[in-house]
């Protein structure tokens, strides 16, 4: 029997070496080690052995079994790894194939700019307020100290609904609303749609956008206005930007100024965009709130002073992105919108 076990061991180990896949290995395991396997059948003959021999042969049979088991599990691991590798190799894909299951949406460049402007002022402690697009003549003109016969009130400049209602021509009526509702002190900005009787061309649109800002408090001065706007301009366009405050005229501020900013295109060198002046002209209008406007809103103009500013968001958006035709902002061509 010893010989039988020995030859069985040899046979098994030899066969194991030739096995190439896991299922053959399992077959082999059953063949040698299974309940009806060869070792079992040898052991079945143990009864014929003498009492002295039985433990010896028993021991040997266990050794043979253990040997075979070891080899099988060794082979199993090797074969398993090979199979895994083969599977991974087979699963190789072309990693350059382009799919379009997902798409990124895009914010409208103008509305995104408006939001960015609001964020800048929010970070400076300004609150955002809103006002209606349809306004009263009172809020849009009268309370803002606009003279009765001012040309901007004409039907050829302003869209009217009736004698008392119009489409706001600027965001400044929000100043009036805010001062009347909230009183002083006040620190607000408001962005939104505005309307003027302009035919559409590459720089004009009957609907456009402004951002308005207002600060009312005790001891607010022109020096504060300049400081605030300078910070804003630098935040928006870069630290190297310079500003130029030119005296100007608005009915609702006194003194009034227009602000030129270093040409964003050439950074002040002079280029066709800035007409070789180095300045982007008229980017903002600003001034100290006219005492009559404060009084119109029930604010004591002796105790409180304030500054206000306004800017065209369309213009800023166009300067920022190098857009040369305002119509693109309103056409909603998907190929345009996809760029932002």
């Amino acid at each position, binding site marked *: 029997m010893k010989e039988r076990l020995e030859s069985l061991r040899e046979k098994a180990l030899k066969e194991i070496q030739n096995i190439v896949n896991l299922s053959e290995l399992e077959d082999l395991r059953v063949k040698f080690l299974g309940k009806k396997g060869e070792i079992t059948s040898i052991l079945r003959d143990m009864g014929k052995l003498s009492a002295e021999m039985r433990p010896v042969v028993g021991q040997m049979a266990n050794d043979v079994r253990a040997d075979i088991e070891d080899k099988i599990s060794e082979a199993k691991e090797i074969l398993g790894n090979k199979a895994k590798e083969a599977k991974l190799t087979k699963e190789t894909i072309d990693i350059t194939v382009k799919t379009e299951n997902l798409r990124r*949406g895009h914010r409208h460049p103008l509305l995104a700019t408006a939001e960015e402007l609001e964020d800048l002022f929010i970070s400076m402690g300004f609150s955002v307020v809103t006002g209606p697009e349809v306004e009263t003549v009172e809020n849009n003109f009268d309370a803002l100290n606009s003279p009765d016969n001012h040309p901007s009130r004409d039907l050829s400049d302003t869209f009217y609904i009736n004698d008392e209602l119009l489409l706001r021509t600027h965001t400044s009526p929000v100043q009036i609303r805010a001062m009347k509702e909230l009183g002083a002190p006040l620190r607000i900005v408001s962005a939104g749609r505005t309307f003027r009787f302009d035919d559409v061309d590459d720089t004009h649109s009957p609907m456009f956008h402004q951002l308005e800002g207002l600060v009312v408090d005790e001891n607010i001065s022109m020096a504060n206005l300049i400081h605030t706007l300078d910070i804003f301009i630098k935040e928006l366009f870069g630290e190297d930007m310079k500003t130029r405050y030119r005296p100007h*005229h608005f009915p609702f501020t006194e003194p009034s100024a227009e602000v030129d900013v270093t040409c964003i295109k050439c950074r002040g060198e002079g280029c066709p965009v800035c007409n070789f002046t180095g300045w982007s002209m008229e980017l903002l209008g600003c001034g100290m709130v006219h005492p009559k406007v404060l009084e119109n809103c029930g604010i004591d103009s002796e105790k409180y002073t304030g500054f206000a500013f306004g800017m065209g968001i369309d213009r800023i958006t166009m300067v920022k992105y190098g857009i040369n035709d305002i119509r693109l902002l309103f056409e909603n061509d998907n190929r345009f919108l996809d760029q932002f």
Partner: protein
Amino acid sequence: MLLPIKWLSKYVDIDVTSKELADGLTYSGSHVESINRLDKGIEKVVVGRIDKLEKHPHADKLLVCEVNVGKELLTIVTGATNLKEGDYVPVALIGAKLPIGLDIGETNFRGVDSQGMLCSLRELGYGDNVIPKEVRDGIFVFDKEYPLGEDASYFLDLDEDVIEFEITPNRPDCLSIFGMARETAATFKKTLKHPEIKVKNEVDDIFEYTNGIQVETPNCYRYYSRVIKDVKIAPSPMWLQTTLMNAGVRPINNVVDVTNYVMLEFGEPLHAFDLDMLNGRKIIVRQAYDNEKLTTLDGIERILSTDDIIIADDQMPIGIAGIMGGLHSEITPETKTVLLEGANFSSKHVRLTSKKFALRTEASTRFEKGIDPYLCNVAVERVCQLIEEIGAGTVVKGIIDVNQITGEDKIISLRPERSKKLLGVDISIDEMIQSLSNLGFQSKFENDVILSKVPSFRADVEVEADLIEEVGRLYGFHNIKSMPLVGGLTRGERPYNKQVELKVKNILQGLGYNEVMTYSFISPKAYDKLNLKEDAVERKYIRLINPLGEDYSTMRTTLMSNMLELLSRNEKKGVEEVLAYEIGYTFMPKSLPVTELPDEKQVLSVGFYGNKDFYFMKESLEVVLARLGIKNIEYIREENNPSFHPGRTAILMVDGIRIGVFGEVHPDVCENYNIKGKIYLAHMDFDNIVKLTNIEVKYKPLPKYPAITRDIALVVDENVMVGELEKIIKDNGNGLVERIILFDIYRGNQVEENKKSVAFSIVYRSYEGTLTDDVVNNIQNAIIKEMESQFMAKLRS
């Protein structure tokens, strides 16, 4: 406003460059648009004299000139017809450059070598708007002898800069050379030089020539008049012509040129009438009668009304006050006697009339802004002086001055501490007084305030803040040292609806939607194109009374039309797929006709076409609402909205509140918008969405006990909706249904016609303990029983 520097320097010493001048004036408040050098682009153009003029031997239309340019005689071929021997002309030498882009070289004209070119004004860079009509086509001929061979542009006064300004409407006083001189003097701290105005010789008496001036309207504040006799109409001397041309005005004849010169000089528009043409030799200033007619200088017949102020003789209108004179009494070469008008009219009337006739002139642009009434006499006297000087006529003794000016001297007090408070800078009292005085405000310091008398040409100055602006702008805003805002810390934030808006925009962006922006006003046709019912609330829209056109005439009551239009445009351009959204306002009138501000309702409009369907829209909305913490969404089939497909449209309800409608657009509507493919739209009430938003999130403990999943498949009628079955599952779940997963809807051989099999996986879980089969079985049975009884559902095995 064009400001030629040579002219300016008659009233103020200029010792800075034009650039420095422009910068200084910009900083003191006059906005410079450009600086133009008049002889820019002109090189080697000299004075020459035509010594000989002969026909070209081989060309009928050409002349050969012998031109003396000082050092040499040149042979020059020209086609001009206005020349004679002895004329002094500008000559472009070989190698000359002209501003129209010409480089002059030797040229052979049919066998004759031409050694240069004789120049017209256009070739020297003058605009067609200023070249006198009679010399438009010919070579320019100098009025007298000039040194031969010297730079011609010097004698044409082209060797100077002209600064162009944009003058704000509150400063009509700056629409004049003298006004700008005053600004310049104040800015650069120079002395302003007033020209001496004096007529040397006056004869006869004005009432021998005219029967007087009658002012019958309160809208003419002043009418100052003088008469010139023995007028000899002729071209003006060259200095006057070049001065006008450099300031952008075309020379016409000596009398008209002088009135234009003085208008530019002082800003007072003047008019000269041919006195012999006036019926009754009389001037009447009155409101026009309705339908009265007048042919103005431009040859157009104007039909007047009582709103118009006119100048009339005793029979008919002879001019529209402050805008344009009449053709009938125009100055002509035959004019012998001239009546000069220096008047002041109501700016409002001039503005409205100018607007009505769409007639804007140098006069109207000044009058409509308001002019100093004390300029009338100064200007008319100045005209008399100049007419005398250039020998264009003899001034008649006597004046007629009808003066209805009202109002008193305006004195405003300026508190130095208030100036400091407003400007944020400490300017000395002396400097303030100096600045104000330089600007024409007589000022003195008394009882701690500066008292300033507002000059008559500064009607824009009304309150203390106006004076502070004057002081501030001369100090220079750019010299104010910036100072941070002080005061309590404030927290900046957006209003709630804007916060919600931004969350929605972020989600939609993540889902692939592009944000769009469309006009608030739309065409009334839109409401028809959307197939809206006759009584639809959207048809109760507000109209603009002066829209840019019918297409922009109504305030939108829906955002759907804008969306469809932009989708249509993109489809036409061949864009394969567009996903878009807009958050905007609709304008719902409280009543019609409108008497008060409309309700501006915020709307979320979503739309797309391409490789997406109804369920993509539904899911997009669900994701948006989920982000806002809005649950309990209910879908109600909408079959009666004529804009939408009756079988593919839903109303979205939350807690019984309607928050919008979405679905496939009705094919008829697509056709109205020329859309070929399928469109899906959602129109959501954003105000309601904001109301329902609950962004606050509360953590819920994770489940400790395992879930049990059971599948069921039911055969139901085709018209039973999945949502209805799901509702039964939820309602009968004893709160243990965690998820319902629809995994199959089957129609075909295995089920009867008009039926479908719907299969769900239902996930049950309790937070209290492990579920037993019994509990789940009971629930499943209850669900199936309910489905059987409500929808005659059959369990599919």
